[in-house]
């Protein structure tokens, strides 16, 4: 049969998402629910003496460190909410108001009086700060400094050299769904409907915080409205909701307002990066030096691995990378999509462009000349590396060939036009996970479980929709009480699959959306076997993974189908619930590899044993694995127009060419690549937390003033990939793709802006005011 892996299968939960039936964390109805509103510190540093509620307000509780229940410490000090009088940053949670209605809670949070002893603060990162220090290691466990040869001598003797400083601002993840938790206690058992990237991990953390046994906590994370790193671990909303629910004896819902997402859930640290490159006249690098400076908070050392990508990218005998860190009275930075790689590669890839300019060499040729045979630092062979192929094929497809390398040469009307290139890389990782597969009796209804069973419906493995007439099924999801799950999308007689323009190559989700009959029946689920008449039986695949919009649910069904040798429609996939087998975080672009590996193992074991159920744990296999020499690579190309009068920058074309192992789903993969590239456009042109040092506050803390790319910003954009085979990394041969799209894309745009205008902007984002002074002739 045809392989399901790789097919452009439509997202299994698509019909739920377009009909409004998909349930996100704050959307689970609870009887007698109360609302929590977090009060945050209005000062960056101080001591909270007391909290006084306005007696005119109707509240159930006002919790602060003076009256909040004691909770256990974890390795994340920011989860020790309301436990001490210490204020470490503006925007830190200092109280929780719980009231019977949202309006009451919000009002009471506004009127509560905070008695604070304010202390002095320091909020500004600078490269000459006397308190800068070198951390013991950078995230997750890399040495802070690496060195080989003699960089200083090589730079002094270099025929051509660049010595430049790049700066990137604080960036804020801003997933569309704000962090939210509904917590309910049933006796000593805690259930949290929580928006996160790691239900198994959040459940373990909540058990630790509230001193519970692991089986006393259940975290439900069925659909997640994006995370981009900010939901990788439990955030204060989860702990506060559970604490509030315990105190008031009712379920409590805490949904963060957008403004609070700029502080307490993490952000990307600002960076200051000095890059020095030395080369011979023929463009062979003799020295690479990358010194990165970033910040952390007083609460927690978060040491971003900004210069680590530089260790893997280009050959050079003399090399040095190092990181310095500064503790400030500011919120703790956390992970944001490609933490380290995104800002680090912006600097390295812009510096390479500057070197190409000095050499008078094509920037692609410069990169190709410095392609290493193995890991540049320790000689470990790469399991696969097709960077040069990405550059060459990408150049061909983008139309690089006849490019005049000189800047400020192409003008159309008011527009300067230029093109730029940059490399991309992201580590290939896997983390221990457990999956379970069960054989379900043929033609039997799937058990109705609150949580997340999604059936592949009528979509067949090769992506062709089955005939609309025989499909009786929506994307059946058993979440109790969801009315007309798949049927909502079809009630009006949506066009049949056959009439959809995309039928043929891309699968029309139409067949999944069309099966109004079965889905309209209410909470029940009809098996795909009944719909397709299959007699091979059905399989339930369960793993506590999270689908943040990555397509995880869909690709896991594809992986299981291939491993079991059945169509995708025979798979019931259950994810998004910590009561399922323990899964690793949806982060580090490692979800598919980690969970797919466990699912493959469980399926193979089921077949080998001939039994009805099998569970597979990848912990030992992954611990035995080599971790060096494993990376995805890519090349970004951008064409920009810069208005010669106003300095407005438009990205008229973007193209990304990737070598990321086996692509598991061509449809969702393309979307994910494009999404990363668009976030890279935001990093290049729009996004910036603007710091007011006097108040230690990002003044633009909402979506009106913190700009992210909008529809009108995105013009011609596409992504493609090489057919890369790598049998050393995991059973699927897949590398992660969630982050590489944002790595290098900002540099490609900034390099294109230089090519258009002759102006090097070295601090992001490229705003009009940075171009205008030098734009006029």
């Amino acid at each position, binding site marked *: 049969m045809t392989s399901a892996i790789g097919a452009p299968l*439509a*997202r299994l*939960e*698509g*019909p739920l*998402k*377009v*009909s*409004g*039936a*998909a*349930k*996100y964390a704050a*959307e689970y109805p609870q009887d007698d629910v109360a609302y929590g509103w977090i009060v945050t510190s209005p000062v960056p540093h101080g001591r909270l003496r007391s909290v006084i509620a306005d007696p005119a307000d109707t509240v159930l509780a006002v919790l602060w460190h003076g009256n909040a229940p004691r909770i256990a410490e974890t390795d994340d000090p920011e989860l020790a909410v309301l436990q001490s009088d210490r204020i470490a940053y503006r925007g830190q949670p200092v109280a929780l108001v719980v009231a019977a209605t*949202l*309006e009451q809670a919000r009002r009471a949070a506004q009127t509560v009086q905070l008695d604070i002893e304010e202390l002095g603060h320091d909020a500004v990162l600078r490269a000459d700060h006397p308190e800068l220090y070198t951390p013991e290691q950078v995230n997750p466990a890399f040495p802070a400094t690496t060195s080989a040869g003699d960089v200083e001598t090589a730079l002094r003797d270099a025929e051509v050299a660049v010595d430049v400083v790049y700066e990137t601002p604080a960036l804020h993840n801003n*997933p*569309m*769904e*704000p962090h939210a938790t509904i917590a309910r206690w049933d006796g000593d058992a805690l259930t949290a409907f929580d928006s996160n990237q790691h239900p198994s991990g959040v459940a373990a953390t909540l058990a630790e915080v509230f001193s519970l046994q692991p089986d006393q906590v259940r975290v439900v994370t069925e*659909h997640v*409205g*994006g995370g*981009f790193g900010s939901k990788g671990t439990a955030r204060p909303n989860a702990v506060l909701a559970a604490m509030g629910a315990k105190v008031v004896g009712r379920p409590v819902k805490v*949904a963060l*307002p*957008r403004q609070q997402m700029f502080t307490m859930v993490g952000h990307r640290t600002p960076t200051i990066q000095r890059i020095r490159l030395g080369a011979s006249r023929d463009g062979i690098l003799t020295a690479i030096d990358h010194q990165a400076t970033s910040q952390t908070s007083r609460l927690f050392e978060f040491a971003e691995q900004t210069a680590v990508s530089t260790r893997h990218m280009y050959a050079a005998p003399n090399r040095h990378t190092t990181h310095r860190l500064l503790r400030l009275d500011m919120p703790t930075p956390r992970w944001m999509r490609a933490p380290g790689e995104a800002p680090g590669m912006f600097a390295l890839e812009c510096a390479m462009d500057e070197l190409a300019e000095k050499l008078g060499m094509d920037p692609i040729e410069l990169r190709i000349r410095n392609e290493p045979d193995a890991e540049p630092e320790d000689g470990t062979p790469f399991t696969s590396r097709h960077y040069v192929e990405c550059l060459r094929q990408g150049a061909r497809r983008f139309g690089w060939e006849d490019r005049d390398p000189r800047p400020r040469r192409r003008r159309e009307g008011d527009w300067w036009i230029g093109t730029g290139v940059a490399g991309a890389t992201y580590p290939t990782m896997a983390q221990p996970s457990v999956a379970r597969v069960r054989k379900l009796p043929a033609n039997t209804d799937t058990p109705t479980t609150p949580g997340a069973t999604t059936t592949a419906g009528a979509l067949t493995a090769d992506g062709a929709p089955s005939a609309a007439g025989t499909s009786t099924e929506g994307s059946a999801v058993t979440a109790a009480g969801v009315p*007309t799950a798949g*049927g909502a*999308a*079809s009630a*009006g*007689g*949506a*066009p049949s699959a056959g009439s*959809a*323009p*995309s039928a043929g190559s*891309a699968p*029309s*989700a139409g067949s999944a*959306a069309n099966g109004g009959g079965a889905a309209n029946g209410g909470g029940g689920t009809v098996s795909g076997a009944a719909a397709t008449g299959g007699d091979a039986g059905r399989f339930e695949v369960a793993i506590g993974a999270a689908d943040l*919009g990555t397509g995880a649910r869909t690709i896991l069904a594809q992986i299981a189908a291939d491993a079991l040798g059945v169509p995708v429609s025979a798979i019931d996939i259950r994810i998004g619930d910590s009561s399922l087998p323990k899964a690793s975080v949806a982060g580090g672009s490692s979800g598919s590899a980690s969970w797919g590996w466990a699912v493959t193992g469980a399926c193979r074991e089921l077949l080998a044993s001939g039994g009805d159920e099998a569970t597979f744990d990848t912990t030992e296999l992954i611990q035995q694995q080599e971790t060096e020499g494993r990376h995805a690579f890519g090349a970004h190309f951008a064409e920009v127009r810069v208005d010669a009068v106003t300095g407005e920058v438009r990205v008229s074309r973007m193209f990304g060419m990737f070598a990321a192992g086996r692509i598991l789903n061509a*449809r*969702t993969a393309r*979307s994910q690549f*494009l999404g*990363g590239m668009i*976030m890279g456009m935001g990093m290049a042109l729009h996004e910036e937390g603007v710091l007011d040092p006097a108040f230690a506050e990002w003044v633009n803390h*909402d*979506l*009106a003033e913190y700009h*992210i*790319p*909008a*529809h*009108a910003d*995105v013009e011609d*954009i*596409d992504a493609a990939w090489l057919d890369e085979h790598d049998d050393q990394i995991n059973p699927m041969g897949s590398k992660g793709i969630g982050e590489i799209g944002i790595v290098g894309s900002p540099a490609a745009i900034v390099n294109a802006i230089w090519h258009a205008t002759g102006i090097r902007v070295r601090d992001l984002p490229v705003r009009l005011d940075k171009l205008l002074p030098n734009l006029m002739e």
Partner: protein
Amino acid sequence: MRLIVNGAKHELDLDPRTTVLDALREHLGLTGAKKGCDHGQCGACTVLLAGRRVNSCLLLAIAHQDTEITTVEGLAGHPVQQGFLDHDGFQCGYCTPGQICSAAGMLDEVAQGRPSAVTEPHDHDLLSDTEIRERMSGNLCRCGAYPNMVPAIRQAAAQAQETPR
């Protein structure tokens, strides 16, 4: 107070500070409309008010008791939904109901011949890709699914022309 949502009348006892968005989500169980910013900045809460797209987080429920409100749940079978499915016009799905309501309202605006900020004088193609992007720019998507929404909306527009609803 009362609200008319997706053709159904509801009698509710609400705090007068309650927004249309919170009335839908917290009191009527209609969680299709999403809360992304609560300040009218992201568009996730977009619904149709008497057929016009609005940010429901900016409206007080008490001020809209007699106006028909249509949420994504009331757009079942709308060609825009099928377009989003066919073109993978979403990833996380959180902005999606707002995008779909916004696109539905936008197509009606185009049908009425209303220009946008990028419409040139004597421009007759009000649904070029540039027009769609401009007209949809009040709805943010952090996943960056924009490139797939444009063909999704184009397909829906073509279908709407073929089969007037």
